């Protein structure tokens, strides 16, 4: 199946893949060829792509996945290959999430849960990547 990963600034990957693991908003998903058409949002996490025996990992933030006609497109606002992911970038993410959470708490809006989830997702990522 055709796999594509794009962020707003450039296209990161476009290749035929065998297996794709995505951090879906409601839980991780493994996508095999001929998956049913799907649209889902992503939570901050690690995206794994297996293509011809090689596994590559990407860190994705805020985006969604669309599966259609045996092609998987992932559009993520922030996505970087794992090797390029650095501490400053992570801190920036976490700070942004926390700022948002703070702002929403002040407004006592119904989105507080979402923001809380975002922050805890980012923190989980920290353990995964940096430990």
């Amino acid at each position, binding site marked *: 199946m055709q796999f594509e990963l*794009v962020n*707003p*600034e450039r296209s990161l990957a476009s290749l035929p893949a065998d297996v794709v693991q995505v951090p879906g908003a409601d839980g991780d998903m493994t996508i095999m060829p001929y998956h049913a*058409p*799907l649209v889902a*949002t992503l939570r901050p996490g690690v995206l794994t792509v297996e293509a011809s025996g090689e596994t590559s990992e990407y860190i994705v933030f805020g985006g969604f996945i669309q599966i*259609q006609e045996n092609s998987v497109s992932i559009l993520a606002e922030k996505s970087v290959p794992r090797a390029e992911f650095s501490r400053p970038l992570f801190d920036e993410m976490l700070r942004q999430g926390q700022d948002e959470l703070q702002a929403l708490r002040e407004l006592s809006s119904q989105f507080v849960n979402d923001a809380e989830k975002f922050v805890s997702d980012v923190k989980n990522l920290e353990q995964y990547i940096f430990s």
Partner: protein
Amino acid sequence: MPSLKDLKNRIESVKSTRKITKAMQMVAAAKLRRAQEAAEAARPYATKFNEVVGSLASSTVQSDSSPRLLVGTGSTQTHLLVVLTSERGLCGGFNSNIVKKVKAHAEKLLADGKQIKIVTVGKKGRDQLKRDYAHFFVGHFDFSDTKNINYSNAEEVSRDILSRFNSDEFDIATIFFSKFISVVSQEPQGLQVIPAEFNFDDADKSISTFFEYEPEEEAILKDLLPRGVTTQIFTGLLENGASEQGARMSAMDNATRNAGDMIDRLTIQYNRSRQAVITNELIEIISGAEAL
């Protein structure tokens, strides 16, 4: 009649101006290529994004619980005009064309009795709008320190706009920017971003596929629509970047050519007056000799 010395000075000064405009043209050409590449690279994301959101938006039933970013506030009273212009001048009619478009739009809204608010991005547009519309200004973004516009710049702008929308400061938001067509032609345009408008003709094709949604459609839309605003602003900023460099390039090309013409004209004038001076001197010598 300017003296020879004056003419010489003028020629020198026009020559150095030509050097500067020539250099600016070449810099603009290099930057244009980069800006075009950036705009090109961003296209897949924007296209795909609009396709998905468009098909989502057209397939969900519009109800009271539909996201306000999609259906609007129910009023069209207050308009927010987001004006994207450049931070630097010397780019021909680029900024003026955008400002002209904004003014036409603003006048029409005001004539209809609507209220307007203006957010400016880029110093040049702000300066030009200040005279007539300063009392409508509600915000300004300065990206003069940013070398290459990136997505986080667009995020900054859209976050501000969305928070204004959430606090009911306006009903409809339109962004103004210049679409890059070619080096000699950039088309200023207004694009409504809130409530979102989609070209449903494009979306119809993918509608035939039945998608599973996770979480449900409405939650996805709620998540995606704010990003859609950011994406559109980002596209606007990138188009503007390419347009600005294109406009500057052709403006500087004209300026260089004008300077060349001017130098030619001044040189002819200089040579003629030098010849006149020589002739005069000869006449004086000859008539002096004859008088003896």
